[in-house]
């Protein structure tokens, strides 16, 4: 019973943190609890949120993808760079780029059995190189203004389209995670890869699919970012992998694999988004803002550790 309670607190702690941050910023800042601000928050979280979907799948598998931020940036550049061919072809090109890099990551992790940390660390450096070469070091401005509608459209005049895309993908992702063999097998692979292999699960195939998924999600995030900025810039995406990993870990997904789900990742994404937004509204000096965000991460895993049952 006690284990169940601590388990519950540990697994659901993200919602307590979310609630606390809402109350805190709500009382501190008059503009915080407004429709306009929440439109902003939803729009702002959708980019890291999309990447977090792929990252959650991979972390449930027991893998990690450090290259998401750079895939995101490269795909944003590709969708702008291909714009002269038309919006649809450029979007497809960006998605293809993300998926190909994801597949490369996946193949090296699954088929060559190199640790995903190394594979994606390499990709993070390499894809950044590709980004610089592709953009020729400078920002490229998009030519087709219609492309920016993707980000600026509000469903029913209220809800930002990118956020809707994110939430729909999240819902589909969660549905797949719960109700399809691909999703269940993700837990099996992360929980006991050996057992999964022996049970005849095509572990390699699932891993590659999830890396491709991570690439595709990063590409989608890149397309949305490009639409918001209408620009390809080589300076994009330096820190995103960090925030995405932090959000997923905050959501309680186990780095070692086997545990986690997307609903709680949504909680993690929200907490990160709300903290950043709230601190911005309060005009907290950037140096203290950084100190705060770094400390909160350590604090949260410290609290999480406190609730951990003694013997697993």
């Amino acid at each position, binding site marked *: 019973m006690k284990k169940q309670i601590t388990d519950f607190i540990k697994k659901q702690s993200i919602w307590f943190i979310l609630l606390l941050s809402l109350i805190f910023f709500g009382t501190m800042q008059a503009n915080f609890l407004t429709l306009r601000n929440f439109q902003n928050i939803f729009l702002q979280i959708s980019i890291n949120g999309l990447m977090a979907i792929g990252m959650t799948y991979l972390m449930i598998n027991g893998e990690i993808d450090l290259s998401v931020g750079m895939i995101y940036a490269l795909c944003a550049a590709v969708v702008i760079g291909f714009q002269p061919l038309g919006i649809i072809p450029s979007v497809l090109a960006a998605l293809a780029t993300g998926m190909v890099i994801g597949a490369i990551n996946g193949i090296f992790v699954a088929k060559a059995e190199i640790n995903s940390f190394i594979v994606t660390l390499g990709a993070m450096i390499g894809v950044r190189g590709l980004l610089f070469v592709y953009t020729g070091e400078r920002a490229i401005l998009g030519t087709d203004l219609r492309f920016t509608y993707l980000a600026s459209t509000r469903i029913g005049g209220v809800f930002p389209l990118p956020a809707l895309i994110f939430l729909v993908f999240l819902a589909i992702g969660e549905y797949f995670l719960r*109700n*399809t*063999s*691909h999703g*269940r*097998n993700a*837990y*099996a692979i*992360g*929980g*006991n890869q*050996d*057992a*999964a*292999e*022996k*049970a*005849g*699960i095509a572990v390699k195939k699932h891993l590659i699919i999830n890396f491709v998924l991570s690439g595709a999600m990063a590409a989608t995030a890149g397309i949305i970012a490009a639409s918001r900025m209408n620009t390809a810039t080589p300076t994009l995406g330096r820190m995103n992998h960090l925030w995405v990993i932090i959000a997923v870990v905050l959501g309680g997904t186990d780095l070692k694999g*086997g*545990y986690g789900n997307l609903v709680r990742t949504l909680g993690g994404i929200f907490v990160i988004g709300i903290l950043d937004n709230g601190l911005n509204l309060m005009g907290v000096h950037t140096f203290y803002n950084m100190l705060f965000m770094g400390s909160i991460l350590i604090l949260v895993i410290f609290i999480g550790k406190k609730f951990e049952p003694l013997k697993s």
Partner: protein
Amino acid sequence: MISIKKTKEKILELKNITKIFPGITAVDDVTFEVNAGEVHALVGENGAGKSTLMKVMAGIHIPEKGSISYKGEKIKLKNPLDAKKKGIILIHQELSLVPQMTVAENILLGSLPSKKGGRINWKELHNRAQEAIKKLGCQFKSTDLVEDLTIAHQQMVEIARAISYDAKVVIFDEPTASLTQEEVEVLYKNIELLKEQGIGIIYISHKLNEIFEVSDKITVLRDGKLVDTLDTDKTDEPEITKKMIGKNIEDFFASKKISKYGDEVIRVENITRKDEFENINFSIKEGEVLGLYGLLGAGRTEVAETIFGINQPDSGQIYFKGHEVNISSSKKAVHLGIGLVPESRKEQGLVLGMSTLENISLAKIPYVHNYGFIQNKEVKEIFDKYKDRLSISTTGPNQKVMNLSGGNQQKIVIGKWLCLNPDLVILDEPTRGIDVGSKAEIHNLIAELAETGMAVLVISSEIPEILGVSHRIITMHQGEQTGVFTDEEVTEDKLIQSITSHAEDICKV
């Protein structure tokens, strides 16, 4: 055992199988078959080729030579999936379960039933799982999480999985290694069930008494070669043992020597750890071997770990050589002169990636260093000395321990403590998963240690072992100390009674 009258159908037949690994021929021209409704035991010392042969059958290894026939038809097993499709299921010693998932998902792992569009059919999943569980008479539900089950129940999940796959051949690899006596009985019952359904069973174990209890046929392997296949009811333990090791061994359980006891080394008074054990009392003198008998989960290991400083007692006192001590860490325990040969050799005893020399000297080096520098000469001397004394067969000091047999690995763990010349050595299940030959050597060694004046605590769930080595025996059951016996008065029955009189459900076949 139940004998099946009808003519047995040959399910799986291996002919002239040879499997070569770099450097060794693991299986050499072995022919082996298993019939429907029959338990065929596979025995041999470690390194005899049992597990390689088993992996050939399960499609994990592809043999260089030889053929495999399934129901009279020649087949090729290219991967585990091929074998699974044929209904050949391997149940590993290390269970192949995903702890975070439900029983149902684990049972149907890899072939979750799905509706159109890829959606999992939860209803069918749980129905099928429930059906398999019911056949085995399990007491848990298909919706339980596997991580919440006991090891025995987890094993039943694996058996249920085999049933749900419509298994034709089930291979058990050391299935009782981590089971309690009661759980072993449940396992036997389940094996009977499988037999009645016409499933062929291959049973691999070190424990000959088990082999004789469950099997219909026994095949003995030695050094990768087939020695003999015999009907179980036409042979006996000594004959099998002889075939396994290739020579007669007079005494497996080297009798203990009555030695003179010296001063008291350790006295434990009323130590208690909540939810683990309560009010444990005993003392051991120099030259004495105290046996701690109890089943898995009785709290024996927890007591050992508490004495060794891994955990601290909630209450109670420990006196070491007459002084009350607070053993706050394993480092302190070692410093006092206590050594622990832990239950799980690979997880707790050895650093598998390190060499034999490094492992054997790991506890010793902080005591022979020179300003922090390792004294290579002394360490080498230690290695040579204990290699000879424990007759460890290794290619040299630099051989990685992961490449050694279980018996030799265990000797290294023991050697690690012997070179510190401790006052008290605790051996937790010292012969688990070790072949007969090495087992005898380790028993002899325990006697020798006591003779040199050490106090020895041996923890075991094997009655012959505990009877064979100890001067005195205490028993534990469900965290409580249930009996103390001197050498003269103790019998097998008394021991069993002592750990079961408190338990409500005993199921003896």
